[in-house]
């Protein structure tokens, strides 16, 4: 029955703790809060006294943060709103705001934002009883707040972490409770100290076995000191429920104490609990004290009074404005226990139905889609404990009842058992089905996203291709070429005009064709470049020489994306070589090497022209020329997605003096 006691107390004190764990007082040590954050904080501080004003103030802070596009403030505002809605038991809003806080915090590097969002998420996960994730988030928040030296928050989060470890490692429960207390002592804030002391106390309460008098006395002394300290600073403690929790836990401790129990001490503490819960209107505490009284009378064997009390507890809960299916389930569970002790199995079955109903509701509430795994695990554990419980009852029956009556009972229990077992099996398979359905939905979504991504990158590529043609056939080059042809015709130099026109037509055709293909061979690229350079030489009166060199290891059949190199050659000619005075002989060198291992073709374009700096100085007004290289730059960065080495570097000057060197790293196409 002891386990039942703890379950009875924990549901009321744990949420109270975690809510408290996030209480903030203005001027908390967490760095320098912005004015928006302070506003949200002030709103949050009013959550116990004036819910409407509290929410309004926080919403205003959020609006301001949105207007300023400040992700840090937004994340913190969302986190406060999430925590406020936790206190209001609005799971939907709580989830929404915690998620928003988390998303916003991801956008920023701010440690504060990340700490608050982790706290909100951890609080949410703890609320929906996803303890493993809750621990992940809270430990993260704990670490971040410690880095921010916000010790009051550390004290409270540390306590919460300690509670969350309750079902696991006792060493960790103790470690975090102790750490929380030392943080709380650093702040000197009575609120934090009480909170942390309750965490340590909870650990001691769990450890205190009735047969180990020493340990038990230590726990009792600890709670007495805690209550003494709390009563001393009662005025400055906002969350009065924690004082109530201290009394309740002390009462529980007396009830669990060595037999015969110290009834006077138990009743004294219970009365104190009820008095405090009445004075501060602490409904949860009041409800728990009814339950505890019921437990007391049940232990004394006064089943009628106990039953009345449990029913009163249920009725009281029904009058409260919020649902708490967990506590209702616990009340019904207690009623079940009474029925079992009175051997009234008809009543037992009745209570069990209600218990199952609220227990289901409790899980439905907390069941989020992502929770299904945890839920299934939890349910199967429940099933095992139920079987054990029924088996125990069964043994009891056999000892005390007539054989025939016993057989009837066994049959009844067997029926109940079969029904439960059937019900849980159904649930288990339903859950499994839900999970697989969700996985299918996830896969479908992932496929859709993948498809969308592919389409987007395809559209991007197509748009670039469309612009490629216009950039590679630079209008300035086209019209200049036409101007040259016109001139040759006007000068009646027919042979040259025809030759020039032929080359120009050939180049236009090559560019048109290549702009529509994904890849061309290096040999084709060299042919196009040669044609282009010849045209430029004719135009500029053969004022420069050129070489195109390809090293022996480089196979000219290898494939590369088309039209990448020409814009750089054009720059070298137009802005490097053309402005050279006639006394200087221009030289353009294009050298190809390749690294097969890295799948790269390296193209080095060198000119001995006037150099970058001089060119920029001369062409202050010239805006057109960078278009082609800008588009090439975009193309290279698009290719970069597939091949991280693709890029180009421009160096002013060549090994032999002035001029310019461009090194292009072009991905080789498979």
């Amino acid at each position, binding site marked *: 029955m002891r386990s039942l006691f703890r379950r009875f107390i924990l549901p009321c004190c744990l949420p109270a703790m975690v809510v408290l764990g996030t209480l903030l007082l203005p001027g908390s040590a967490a760095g320098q809060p912005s004015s928006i954050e302070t506003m949200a904080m002030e709103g949050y501080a009013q959550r116990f006294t004036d819910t409407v004003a509290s929410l309004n103030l926080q919403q205003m802070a959020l609006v301001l943060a949105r207007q300023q596009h400040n992700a840090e403030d937004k994340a913190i505002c969302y986190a406060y709103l999430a925590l406020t809605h936790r206190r209001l038991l609005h799971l939907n809003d709580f989830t929404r705001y915690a998620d928003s806080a988390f998303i916003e915090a991801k956008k920023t590097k701010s440690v504060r934002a990340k700490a608050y969002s982790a706290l909100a998420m951890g609080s949410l996960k703890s609320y929906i009883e996803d303890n493993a994730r809750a621990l992940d988030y809270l430990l993260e928040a704990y670490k971040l707040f410690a880095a921010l030296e916000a010790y009051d928050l550390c004290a409270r989060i540390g306590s919460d972490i300690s509670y969350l470890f309750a079902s696991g490692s006792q060493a960790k429960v103790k470690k975090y409770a102790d750490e929380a207390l030392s943080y709380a002592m650093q702040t000197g804030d009575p609120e934090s100290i009480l909170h942390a002391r309750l965490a340590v106390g909870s650990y001691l309460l769990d450890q205190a076995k009735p047969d180990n008098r020493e340990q038990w006395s230590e726990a009792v002394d600890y709670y007495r000191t805690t209550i003494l300290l709390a009563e001393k600073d009662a005025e400055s403690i906002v969350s009065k429920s924690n004082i109530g929790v201290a009394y309740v836990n002390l009462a529980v401790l007396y009830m669990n104490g060595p037999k015969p129990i110290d009834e006077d001490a138990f009743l004294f503490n219970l009365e104190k609990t009820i008095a405090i819960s009445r004075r501060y209107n602490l409904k949860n505490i009041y409800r728990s004290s009814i339950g505890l009284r019921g437990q007391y009378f049940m232990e004394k064997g006064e089943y009628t009074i106990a039953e009345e009390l449990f029913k009163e507890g249920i009725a009281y809960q029904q009058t409260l404005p919020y649902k708490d299916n967990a506590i209702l389930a616990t009340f019904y569970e207690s009623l079940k226990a009474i029925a079992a002790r009175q051997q009234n199995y008809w009543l037992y079955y009745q209570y069990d139905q209600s218990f199952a109903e609220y227990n289901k509701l409790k899980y439905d509430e907390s069941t989020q889609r992502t929770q299904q795994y945890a839920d299934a695990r939890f349910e199967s554990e429940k099933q095992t404990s139920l079987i054990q419980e029924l088996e125990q009852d069964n043994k009891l029956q056999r000892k005390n009842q007539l054989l025939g009556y016993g057989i009837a009972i066994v049959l009844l229990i067997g029926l109940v058992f079969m029904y439960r077992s059937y019900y849980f099996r159904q649930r288990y398979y339903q859950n499994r089905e839900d999970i697989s359905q969700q996985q299918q939905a996830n896969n479908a979504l992932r496929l859709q996203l993948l498809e969308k991504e592919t389409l987007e990158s395809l559209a991007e590529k197509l748009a670039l291709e469309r612009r490629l043609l216009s950039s590679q056939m630079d209008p300035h080059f086209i*019209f200049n070429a036409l101007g040259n042809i016109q001139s*040759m015709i006007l000068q009646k130099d027919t042979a040259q005009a025809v030759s020039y026109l032929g080359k120009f037509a050939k180049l236009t055709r090559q560019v048109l064709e290549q702009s529509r293909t994904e890849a061309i061979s290096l040999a084709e690229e060299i042919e196009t470049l040669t044609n282009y350079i010849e045209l430029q030489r004719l135009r500029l009166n053969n004022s420069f020489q050129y070489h195109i060199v390809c090293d022996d290891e480089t196979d000219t059949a290898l494939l590369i994306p088309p039209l990448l190199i020409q814009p750089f050659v054009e720059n070298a000619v137009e802005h490097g070589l053309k402005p050279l005075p006639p006394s200087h002989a221009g030289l353009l060198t294009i050298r190809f090497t390749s690294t097969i291992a890295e799948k790269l073709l390296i193209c080095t374009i060198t000119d001995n022209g006037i150099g970058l700096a001089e060119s920029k100085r001369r062409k202050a007004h010239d805006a057109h020329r960078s278009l082609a290289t800008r588009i090439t730059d975009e193309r290279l960065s698009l290719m970069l997605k597939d091949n991280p080495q693709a890029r180009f570097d421009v160096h002013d000057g060549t090994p032999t003096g002035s001029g310019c060197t461009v090194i292009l790293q072009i991905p080789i196409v498979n």
Partner: protein
Amino acid sequence: MYKAVIIEDEHRLREALSILLEMVADDQVQVVGYAEHADDAVKLINRLKPDLVFLDIMLKDGTGFDVLQRIDYRGFHLIFTTAYEEHAIRAFKYSAIDYLLKPIDQEELKLSIDRIKDIQQKMVGEQQVQELHENLQKAPERLVLPTLEAMHVVKVDEIVRCETSGSYTTFLLADGRKIIVSKPLKNYEDILLPPLFFRVHQSHLINVHYIQSYSKEGLIQMKDKAAIPISRAKKEAFFKLMTEDGNP
């Protein structure tokens, strides 16, 4: 007879222009010199004091704009030449500076030469060069309107509307002034663009900032009390422009 110089860094294009000038205006224009570099161009113009300058934008050691800013003598008609410079062409239009596109068209060249004869004052004003310089740097805020008597510089946002009458365009300004320019409305439609300006009718280009009201039947009441009709073909585009977000 006009004394002309050609500033052009490509020898073939320079020769082409000379030959074309012989063909269309042999009796009016005589080419007296040429230059390939900006430095030479400045010296040449200052020395020869020509009546007409053909100026290329891209020169070997600088740009035609540099030449304009550095010369002392400005008593000439100016015609820019360019193969393709969108940016510069818009600036020319705003600054009312004549230009020819290469390869040069015979007819265009003849029209440019004929226009010179109409303009009494052949001075390339300090202000016009300044406007050109500014219009090249940023989005133009002012428009140069050349008339027979003067060069009017008007702020773009003070233009209420433009009205065409044949090959002339009348500008109606916010202060009530009217300026008549001997260029077709098409010339200004190309540079006074939506969303601020909209050609609502064959004869009307309006500044949407100065619309007082408009009716679905297609009549716009302007703030200068004028009633402007919307042509049937433009109605849809106009209503769309007026209802789009972020529009005045």
